[in-house]
């Protein structure tokens, strides 16, 4: 059994991170080299020269047009991973080749497929369309997490922790005290957790960005598409307001919170986060506030989970935990991830 689900798509980067320059990131234990070619597409291949394993992202390795030249002995590869030059001889060994990763740029993310490339079906990549929708303004970031990815999944599937870990930011008493409804769609591969607070305190995160004062209706509808993509549909509205029968919801503010949870190693994770809103479009002040506030909240999680990782790593495997009602969604996620790992 693999420690992570294989034959799956993972977010490796934001598209904005990859220019016509060498870029590396480790995904599921595999160091991957990226660059954006002259025609604008993103390449992905192992970040190791086949010769003596020197990292191709490591200077003096360099990019020359659309070929990467190994900084150790000069092995040269094209954007498809084919070796086109080796030092001192004309014959290029048949095995001198880097197997490219299937890569798709979509919804502002660069997705790579970790597994057998023959199984890479791009139609299976879950969507986060708000991140590139002109009807939304998005702020985003990525924080390195020194903890196994499962701890971040646990964290995000149970938002009752907002009341305690994020009090004064996004947590209010009602989050922890409001019951949740959970569903698992086995066929669609979606875990949903819904918490509807109809009369709640408005945390500063929303009062300062929306201008709403006093108590609010606050809905949190999570959809987790294992293993990588997590979305939180957040609805903030005056108390008593509900969406209209035709589906429009003019009195409410909507925030789509998106996380990509990408394992780096067994005990570290790339924590991609994005916040897309359908109000104050293009307002730089609101963007700066939401970016700073959300990053603060993410870093509160990172700090807590980094500590938790150390605690768990020091304990015997299978140490007894206690689960209660708030953990229903997290337990479902663990089960689905466990099943995907068993198949790997």
């Amino acid at each position, binding site marked *: 059994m693999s420690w992570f689900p294989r034959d799956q798509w993972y977010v490796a980067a934001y598209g904005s991170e990859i220019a016509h320059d060498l870029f590396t990131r480790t995904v599921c234990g595999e160091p991957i080299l990226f660059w954006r070619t002259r025609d604008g597409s993103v390449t992905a291949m192992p970040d190791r020269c086949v010769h003596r394993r020197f990292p191709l992202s490591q200077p003096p390795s360099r990019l020359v047009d659309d070929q990467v030249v190994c900084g150790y002995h000069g092995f040269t590869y094209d954007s498809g991973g084919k070796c086109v030059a080796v030092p001192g001889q004309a014959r290029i060994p048949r095995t001198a080749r880097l197997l490219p990763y299937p890569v798709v740029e979509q919804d502002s993310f660069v997705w790579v497929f970790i597994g057998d490339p023959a199984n890479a079906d791009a139609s299976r990549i879950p969507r986060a369309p708000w991140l590139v929708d002109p009807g939304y303004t998005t702020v985003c970031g990525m924080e390195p997490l020194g903890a196994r990815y499962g701890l971040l999944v646990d964290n995000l599937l149970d938002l009752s922790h907002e009341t305690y870990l994020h009090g004064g930011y996004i947590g209010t008493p009602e989050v922890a005290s409001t*019951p*949740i*409804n*959970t*569903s*698992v*769609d*086995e*066929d*669609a591969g*979606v875990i*949903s957790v*819904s918490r509807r607070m109809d009369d709640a305190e408005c945390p500063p995160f929303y009062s300062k960005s929306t201008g709403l004062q006093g108590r609010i209706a606050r809905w949190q*509808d999570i*959809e987790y598409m294992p293993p990588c993509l997590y979305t939180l*549909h957040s609805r903030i509205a005056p108390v008593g307001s509900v969406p209209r029968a035709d589906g429009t919801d003019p009195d409410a503010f909507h925030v789509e919170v998106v996380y990509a949870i990408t394992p780096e190693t067994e005990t570290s994770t790339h924590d991609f986060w994005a916040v897309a809103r359908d109000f104050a479009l293009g307002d730089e002040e609101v963007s700066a506030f939401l970016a700073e506030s959300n990053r603060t909240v993410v870093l509160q999680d990172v700090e807590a989970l980094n500590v938790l990782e150390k605690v768990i790593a020091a304990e015997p495997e299978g140490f007894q935990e206690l*689960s*209660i*009602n708030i*953990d*229903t969604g997290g*337990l*479902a996620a663990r*089960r689905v991830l466990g099943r995907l790992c068993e198949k790997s």
Partner: protein
Amino acid sequence: MKTTTGRRVFRIHWVPGTDRLHATCHCAAEREFEDPVELWEWLLAHPEGHTP
């Protein structure tokens, strides 16, 4: 929120005003629990012990 369209959907409803969880299997079997771990064991045992 996106409507789930798959055929096999497990639903767990927190019974208002209580600490109990109401589980419904995709086969329509239903049962209440106080412990989510026991709840998942029952749901995943489908069809064992599931009488609609």
